[in-house]
């Protein structure tokens, strides 16, 4: 019986990764596996060619009211609007294709170690995160470059688990007037976040961790637990 390639291997081939010579040889002569790779590769190619214009846009509210009016339906509940608004305010996807250079304009680079996978991490900035309004918690933040990507590493060891709220990491301007949502921090875990390519970290040196409700509101809750400023 023919031993076909693992689906995970076929997916990696579709992304253009080099795989084991045996897998490669099998796909060369197996129409089934070859066609799987071709299908997925077509999806990958289209996805890689996406631009901001392809992002789904929410139609104006007048469209839905026009539909209910034309069909003579009772005016709808507000869920249509509120959910779409919440979705449109989520962090947007970065369609930036293959950007090799990371926009870090922070001082000297110190090699801090070699990670498990053999890739090298360079420390470019760090901060201690201090308690806000006597929250009592304390942590650290650092920015490393790993394979050309800027990675923010956040650790706040003693954060308690929350039942119906969660912690979110932000980077902000020194006056905290402008904030960029970076990602979710789970209690008891170190958070690692790849920063958007081209983000100028000197403009957003403040690292902040806030408590957020599951309310679909993507804005900062104004309830911070720790904060600190990155320095080189």
């Amino acid at each position: 019986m023919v031993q076909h390639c693992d689906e995970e291997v076929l997916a990696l081939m579709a992304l253009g990764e080099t795989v084991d010579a045996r897998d490669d040889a099998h796909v060369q002569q197996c129409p089934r596996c070859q066609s799987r790779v071709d299908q997925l590769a077509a999806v990958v190619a289209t996805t890689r060619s996406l631009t901001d214009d392809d992002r789904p846009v929410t139609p104006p509210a007048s469209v839905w009211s026009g539909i209910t009016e034309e069909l003579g339906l009772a005016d709808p509940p507000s869920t249509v609007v509120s959910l779409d608004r919440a979705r449109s305010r989520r962090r947007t996807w970065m369609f930036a294709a293959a950007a090799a250079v990371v926009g870090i304009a922070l001082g000297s680079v110190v090699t801090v170690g070699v990670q498990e996978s053999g890739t090298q991490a360079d420390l470019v900035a760090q901060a201690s995160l201090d308690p806000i309004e006597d929250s009592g918690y304390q942590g650290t933040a650092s920015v490393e470059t790993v394979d050309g990507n800027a990675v923010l590493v956040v650790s706040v060891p003693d954060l308690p688990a929350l039942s119906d709220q969660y912690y979110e990491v932000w980077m902000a301007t020194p006056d905290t007037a402008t904030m960029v949502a970076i990602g979710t921090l789970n209690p008891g875990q170190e958070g690692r976040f790849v920063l958007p390519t081209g983000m100028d970290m000197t403009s957003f040196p403040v690292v902040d961790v806030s408590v957020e409700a599951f309310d679909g509101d993507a804005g900062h809750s104004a309830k911070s637990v720790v904060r600190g400023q990155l320095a080189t």
Partner: protein
Amino acid sequence: MKSDDDERIQKRLRRRYRGVTPAGSPSVAMDSIVQPEGVRSVLVDEWTDEAIGARFASGDERALEEAYRRWSRLVFTVAQRATGSPDDAADVTQATFVSAWRSRQGFDANKGSLPAWLMSISRRRLADHWKERSREMRRTDAVARVTDDPEHEPVDGLVDRVLLADELERLGEPQRRIMELAFFQDLTHVQIAGVLDLPLGTVKSHIRRFLDRLRTRLEVDGAAL
């Protein structure tokens, strides 16, 4: 107090269920769900695409509302790309949902998904739009070069692109970061595992599952009916 709790639960579930019902997911036995007052939209959020299709065809107005909530962005965005005008796209979107509702008995779940059917209707409404536009052009400009051909825009390609972008925007973490790095930064799975400090197997299985989901979404919802 009770209503506050309901609202809180509702919000949490909405967030949890928002956009996580890909086509082909197991259908929920709708009748087995007890429906407390005030949390209707939570249950609507749990409806599979198939359940919405069945309810839509049978004339349940909540299914129209939910279909609009899930797929009006797709219809509108494709129409906007095709016509180049937000106003025209709004007209086409309205006309699409109005005709879909009026001809709902013609929806056959055996032939395709509800979004695929909606898109086939929106292609016809786009064709109407272009015909109307070319008539106007002929009236106002004797040498208008606009053709009557409704196929002059590659709508199928647009549908696929918007479907893919939509699927990407629905991703939660860590899948989103993994796929961003794989698609747009061209990192290998080994590099991604290093950057995100995740096990190799986790990265590989997320990649495999997500590519498969994208392919299915194009097959099911991007199919030309």
